[in-house]
């Protein structure tokens, strides 16, 4: 995938056998500001790998969200504009319409996309904007200190639902990707997770598919990423991953929700992203 071994005959042999992973150039070599155990770092890396695999970094114009990932432009070395909270899909629409040749990427959290930015995401999807949207759902407002998000599970304690989310008072979690998938403008919608290596491999294939949809002239493509927030959830990183695999995945089923692109590419293959290709 991202290995030079694929393209360089010189690396075959003893040296190649030791090369197990090479960081894509587009991923900036810098310690992140994210908390220990946070999933954003993994998702950034997957994005960097996919962008590199598809030769996209020099053509990419990306939109940064408000939330923990606002500083994504410190880690991905591509052109970035910062959107007001929730407005990334509208900002991306403006870029899309003026730069038909660019690869347009948005990166939003669940408070950003599924609460304050609901109108923008729904209408960008309804218009079938040729945009690839990465939607990181960790069920909480991380940056502001762990408040309840629209995606917070029933019963989950947060700093603004200290007794647990009560459906009678606070409503139900939103499966917004399923809602968006109803719209004919959505070419591809899938949900993956960063819970373990296998999930991460499948997630990478989903992200790659969502990027290819845009390159191939399809409409709106979104990948929801179930991620963790150990600090916001009050768990150790390991506990948070177990929680992710259990109740979170139960509430938000994994898989491709809709794929209106070519049928032959409808199912992403389970790939191990960081291992050399055989």
């Amino acid at each position: 995938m991202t290995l030079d071994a694929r393209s360089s005959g010189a690396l075959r042999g003893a040296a190649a056998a030791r090369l197990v992973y090479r960081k894509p150039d587009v991923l900036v070599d810098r310690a992140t500001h994210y908390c220990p155990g946070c999933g954003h770092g993994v998702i950034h890396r997957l994005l960097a790998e996919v962008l590199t695999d598809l030769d996209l970094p020099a053509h990419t114009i990306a939109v940064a969200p408000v939330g923990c990932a606002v500083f994504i432009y410190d880690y991905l070395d591509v052109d970035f504009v910062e959107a007001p909270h929730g407005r990334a899909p509208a900002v991306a629409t403006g870029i899309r319409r003026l730069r038909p040749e660019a690869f347009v990427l948005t990166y939003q959290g669940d408070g950003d996309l599924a609460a304050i930015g609901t109108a923008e995401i729904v209408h960008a999807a309804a218009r079938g904007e040729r945009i690839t949207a990465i939607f990181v759902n960790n069920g909480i407002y991380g940056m502001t200190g762990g408040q309840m998000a629209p995606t917070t599970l029933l019963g989950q304690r947060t700093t603004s639902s200290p007794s647990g989310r009560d459906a009678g008072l606070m409503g139900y979690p939103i499966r917004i990707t399923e809602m968006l998938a109803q719209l004919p403008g959505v070419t591809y919608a899938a949900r993956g997770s960063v819970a373990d290596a296998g999930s991460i491999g499948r997630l990478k294939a989903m992200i790659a598919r969502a990027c290819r949809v845009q390159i191939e002239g399809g409409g709106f493509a979104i990948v929801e990423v179930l991620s963790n927030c150990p600090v916001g959830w009050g768990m150790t990183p390991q506990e948070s991953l177990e929680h992710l695999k259990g109740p979170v995945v139960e509430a938000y089923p994994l898989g491709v929700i809709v794929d209106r692109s070519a049928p032959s590419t409808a199912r992403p293959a389970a790939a191990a992203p960081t291992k050399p290709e055989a």
Partner: protein
Amino acid sequence: METGRRARVLMKGNEAIAEAAIQAGCDAYFGYPITPQAELLEWMARRMPELGRVFVQAESELGAINMALGAAATGARVMVSSSSPGISLMAEAMSYMAGSGTPVVLVNVMRAGPGLGGIGPSQSDYFQATKGHGHGDYRVPVLAPDSIGEAMDLMATAFELAERYRTPVMLVADGILGQAMEPVELRFRTPERQAFDWALTGAAGRPARIIKSIDLDPEVLERRNLALQHKYREIARHETRWEGWRLGDAEFAIVAYGTAARVARSAIARARDNGMKVGLFRPITLWPFPERELARMSRQLHGILTVELSSGQMIEDVRLAVEGRCPVAFHGRMGGLVPTPDEVLGALKALRGRVERTRAASGHSPAAHDRGTPSTNGAGLDAGARPGGRG
């Protein structure tokens, strides 16, 4: 550059503004329907696709202004238009655009508020335009035409200012300017294109670019703010615009902009017929407000009447400029009503009466006043105050 088209046609304000923007090279328009500017959006809906340019009817004013933000970030010439309640929704993004240096032109065809208010003409968004909208220490140049022809000319100016200073720029009209039809000369201007070293085009063969407003380091953020304030001082120094009319021998002046200035001209003509020496001081940029010019003018005046289609908003800037050198009175209507020339004349006479009584009580004769200085008196002021003249 002049495009050379010089026909004289009858045009509705909203449509003339839209066409002027198109001729000024507007690449993309984003909007959401609202009265009394819907014709502007409709004109764009028809014309922009005809020209192979971008038109998007957004899901809301929030959507429209953020699309504009994204489009402008790519270096395109971009505009949005709305009316008062819609501009309130655009306030958030205006702050981001000011903070990140994103050039977008906004047209506000003002209607009467507060709240949903009404659709009649109003100037009650002066505070919003010049001191308000979004959060943070920022300013937005505000252009206020008083005729459809001037609005057309100022559309090109708006794009120039936006691109020269990397800032949002607002043009304010009111329901009358938007809805009325006037004969206009089809004289358009297309500002030269600049090469932007900040535009997002994909980082091919160059380092990646970031357009943002966040800086969590207070020292860095203060430096960013200081740079913004420096820019605003430059704008105030070079871009202040106003017009003087019949000010040469004036003892009284009306300060008014937009439609209120049109009414003021009629009132001034009647006052002159009655022997009152009155002129018009018309700010064309509401921010930067022509405060130095008004301050200089006020030294020769016995009194100033501010006329607005509001409860009195610009009058605060008038008073700050005049600094008590002469009385400043107010006349305005609200709710979508426009003062008549006779109402304004009545207010002028009341101001004169007040000034005469004050002066009689303090032993001054209005005829022998000595407030003016030779360098700012007389015809010199009018000559330096051509329409579009810079302060």
